[in-house]
């Protein structure tokens, strides 16, 4: 039995990146999801979308190529790949809401076993939360994946029976990549398909707020 070795943020991003297929149109949320762009396997062509009107986003520019006119939704400077294009905000969200993105990867405060997502307001008492494009992305993309630590800093589960935080969207999430596991959201709730090194079924269940089923073939 090995020690429990949680994945780093980079490892989580890298793990999720492996499952993104050639030709997908993908929006990557702020935080760990943004890191995914750097880990898409070489030679696999994926088209990145940014809410502020960009398709075909490339990596951060080298200092010499910095372009203050080209930023992503996180307000970081980016580049544009060959084949990229610009459009306005209504057209950008038409792409999102109209079901044209194959995938959106978001962060989360909580994901419920029915796929409900809470990722925008930290409490019901927060009177000025910043929602941004999260609600549009969560209802619009064909697949919503979440990348997040498995628990809060205090050790509270983020995969839960029912979200306590204000919801972003109902039944939106289909897969969760955490620092401990990869979990599918199914009609029957959470189904683990992969565990990080040294993570036992028992340890994972202990850190999760709803029952887990295990589809993975990995040894304990």
């Amino acid at each position, binding site marked *: 039995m090995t020690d429990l070795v949680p994945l780093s943020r980079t490892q989580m991003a890298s793990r999720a990146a492996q499952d993104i297929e*050639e*030709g997908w*149109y993908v929006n990557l949320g702020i935080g760990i999801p943004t890191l995914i762009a750097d880990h898409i396997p070489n030679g696999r*062509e994926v*088209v990145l*979308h940014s809410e502020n009107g960009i*398709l*075909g986003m490339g990596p951060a520019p080298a200092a010499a190529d910095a372009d203050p006119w080209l930023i992503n939704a996180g307000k970081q400077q980016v580049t*544009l790949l*060959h*084949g*990229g*294009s*610009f*459009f306005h905000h*209504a057209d950008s*969200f*038409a*792409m*999102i*809401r*109209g*079901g*044209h*993105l194959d995938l959106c990867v978001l962060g989360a405060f909580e994901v419920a076993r029915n796929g409900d997502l809470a990722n925008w307001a930290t409490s019901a008492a927060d009177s000025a939360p910043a929602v941004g494009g999260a609600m549009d992305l969560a*209802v*619009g993309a064909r697949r919503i994946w979440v990348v997040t630590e498995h628990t809060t800093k205090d050790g509270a589960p983020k995969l839960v029976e029912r979200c306590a935080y204000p919801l972003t969207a109902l039944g939106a999430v289909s897969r969760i990549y955490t620092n401990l596991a990869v979990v599918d959201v199914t009609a029957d709730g959470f189904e683990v398909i992969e565990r990080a090194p040294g993570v036992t079924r028992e340890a994972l269940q202990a850190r999760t707020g709803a029952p887990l089923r295990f589809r993975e073939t990995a040894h304990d």
Partner: protein
Amino acid sequence: MIDKIVPDLSAALSGVSDGATVMVGGFGAVGQPDALIEALIDQGARDLTVIANNAGTGHTGLARLMEAGRVRRIICSFPRSAGSVVFEALFKAGHIALEIVPQGTLAERIRAAGAGVGAFFTPTGYGTRLAEGKETREIDGKHYVMEYALHADLALVEAWQADRWGNLTYRRSGRNFNPIMASAATLTVAQTQHLAELGTLDPESVVTPGIFVDRVVHVPYGDPKG
């Protein structure tokens, strides 16, 4: 590598099913995907619903598709153009169903489908025969009619330039319904006059980003007919 360019018209339309709803771009002869319409005739799908601004003229293109008995229903704004003889005869004989939609409502319903908007309130048609039976609403003292998004299984569009990602440009008044139809179908196929190397289309001037396009076929078709 993403490559949406298919080798020929037959590949462009493979898999189209009987009963499909098909959007056809163009206004007049300009921006009309003639080669794809001909290919659809060859492809054989039957019992089609066609969404287009017009109902075809003469005995070619859309009119020939209808004449071949392949169109069950047409949704359009202007079925009676000069020369819409095939439609007229079929309609009179009760062999084709018609839904008349004001041109702007048609465009907006198509755009709504592409944009994930389920329905919207337009002032167009309020108090007229075309609003009969439809839900209405008064908003800030103005009267509106509720109209639903209009999806399609297949959109046929005509582009001026296209690259392997499916980015499209159009030529002058050839733009018309093409960009919104490209966004509103499960399968969008573009015939293009020119193929462009990836990266040669100005990203500020791409009209239809490739996200909306599934297949591109190169048809150097020359000027619009008619």
